[in-house]
């Protein structure tokens, strides 16, 4: 098979941390610019996306929908689109300046990711929760049918685990031995109406995935870049062994901006001017703001 890969040169830990700081600036500036959006989950998943696109995945910014010969990433909890858009732009999928159009009219950067406007890097619409794991499983099976030896990554929310379709997909993936898939749950313990334990208790989430036949790893600190990379390198070694792999990634909602951290209050609210200044003061500009 012809390879389309432009292998992104893995970055050093320091470089990855610098990129993360810039991505966090992008996120808060994007939601502030339009006056709404979802900063909390986006900030918490910054290390995940930066590590995938700048270190772990083989991927091609010269975007092709079929993704043959490269690793794929899907975002099921589409409301945290700001972090994905920032990382896609910063890794060369589209101009960084376009980040300023997020959630505004006539933009390719829709409130939730879509394929409809043709934004490079996006392979399915998400936003209505609970659907991404199924799509990722299908894409992983297509890779197998194509003899394409690359991985599929998918991120979900923990509140999103309430949706029954997730468990249909989980059962299916194990039954069909979809072992070229690394699914991650953003285990921040928060959803819109409050902490997950209060809204809908997930109880022993890792045990649930194990009982469905998955290989499960717990990532204790998904905001620690070194630990995150080590965990995913380990997860890669577990692929190809007959079971899908799940990572329960503990993150801090709103991580990196002190007043947003650890609360569902910042799930879907944009900072005002003062709050923006306060946030940016905590996040060094490393690559240049859009």
């Amino acid at each position, binding site marked *: 098979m012809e390879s389309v890969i432009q292998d992104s040169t893995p970055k050093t830990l320091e470089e990855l941390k610098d990129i993360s700081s810039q991505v966090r600036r992008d996120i808060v500036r994007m939601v502030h610019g339009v006056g709404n959006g979802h900063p909390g989950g986006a900030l918490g998943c910054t290390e995940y996306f930066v590590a995938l696109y700048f270190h772990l995945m083989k991927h091609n910014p010269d975007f092709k929908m079929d993704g043959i010969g490269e690793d794929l990433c899907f975002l099921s909890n589409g409301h945290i689109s700001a972090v994905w858009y920032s990382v896609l732009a910063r890794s060369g999928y589209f101009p960084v300046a376009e980040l300023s159009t997020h959630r505004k*009219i006539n933009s390719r*950067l*829709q*409130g939730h990711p879509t394929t*409809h*406007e043709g934004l490079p890097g996006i392979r399915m619409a998400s*936003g209505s929760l*609970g659907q991404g794991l199924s799509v990722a499983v299908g894409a992983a099976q297509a890779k197998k049918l194509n003899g394409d030896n690359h991985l599929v990554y998918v991120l979900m929310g923990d509140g999103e685990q309430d949706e029954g379709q997730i468990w249909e997909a989980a059962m299916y993936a194990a039954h069909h031995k979809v072992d070229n898939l690394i699914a991650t749950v953003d285990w921040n313990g928060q*959803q819109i109406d409050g902490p997950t334990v209060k809204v809908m208790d997930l109880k022993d989430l890792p045990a649930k995935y194990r009982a469905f036949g998955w290989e499960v790893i717990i990532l204790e600190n998904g905001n620690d870049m070194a630990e995150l990379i080590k965990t995913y390198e380990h997860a890669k070694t577990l692929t190809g062994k007959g079971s899908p792999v799940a990572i329960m990634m503990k993150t801090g909602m709103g991580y990196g901006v002190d007043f947003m951290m650890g609360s569902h209050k910042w799930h879907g609210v944009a900072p005002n001017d003062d709050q923006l200044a306060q946030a940016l003061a905590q996040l060094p500009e490393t690559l240049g703001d859009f």
Partner: protein
Amino acid sequence: MKQFTILDKKDTRSGFGVGLLEAGRKNPNVVALCADLVGSLKMDAFIKEFPERFFQVGIAEANMMGVAAGLTIGGKIPFTGTFANFSTGRVYDQIRQSIAYSDKNVKICASHAGLTLGEDGATHQILEDLGMMRMLPGMTVINPCDFNQTKAATMAIAEHHGPVYLRFGRPVVPVFISEDTPFIIGKALMLNEGADVSIFATGHMVWKAIEAGHILAERGIDAEIINIHTIKPLDKEAILESVKKTGCAVSAEEHQLNGGLGDAIAHVLTSNYPSPLEMVAVQDTFGESGTPDELMVKYGLTSTAIVDAAERAIKRKKEVLA
């Protein structure tokens, strides 16, 4: 053209919140369920007063519809709350089998309907919900136009036995229906009597129809404006009576062209009294992110679009008569 005073500016979803609390006070069998969107649905006041009559279901809309259906079997009157997209398309078969076909007394209450949901974009902006719900046998479908009407509708559906889809929205819009206007399910509300064209509007488009009525009046056109808050059962008598007088019609809705109010009126007219009908609706496309006002302009859901449609309808009427 009659003058309408803007009494206040409020979101229709808040009318639902207040109506739900009132309905709960009047009838102890009223219970509520929500799928992780309590604040958006304005259910806090009900929850505070009746914590034991509220069920948080998490992000699991299909389960919510099934549980609601089950609660009716013990005589409860469940009100489910989530966004319109997740209240309909997401759970269509659960509504179809467990609620509509099983004739269960569930009130499906849906916020953030249509384009005016705004920046969240097309994944959340359902424009097909009226169509889906209208197609279900036995389903009552209601789309009120302001805070007061939404409050009154919420209380009225608690008294009505049978499945109901109640659709309302996110943005702050004019309140212009007086608090004491009775809400009668299935009975259209005459807002302005006129002779030249009948404008049938629902939801957020009703205020725009009133604005259009003023512009038309300046141009010497006497528009009849009727608020169709109940899409099903549709008030056929009111529609036919009006069009027999004016000879042409305009429909206006924040919904897809296919399947909505315009289609329902077209059916009534073609079967009974064929007349020119111009539809103001989204033209078979998905929405996108943007502010509510920007989107209503871009997708042609404005008072000027209603004015243009009225003029087209009148022109067609004259062509038929000539």
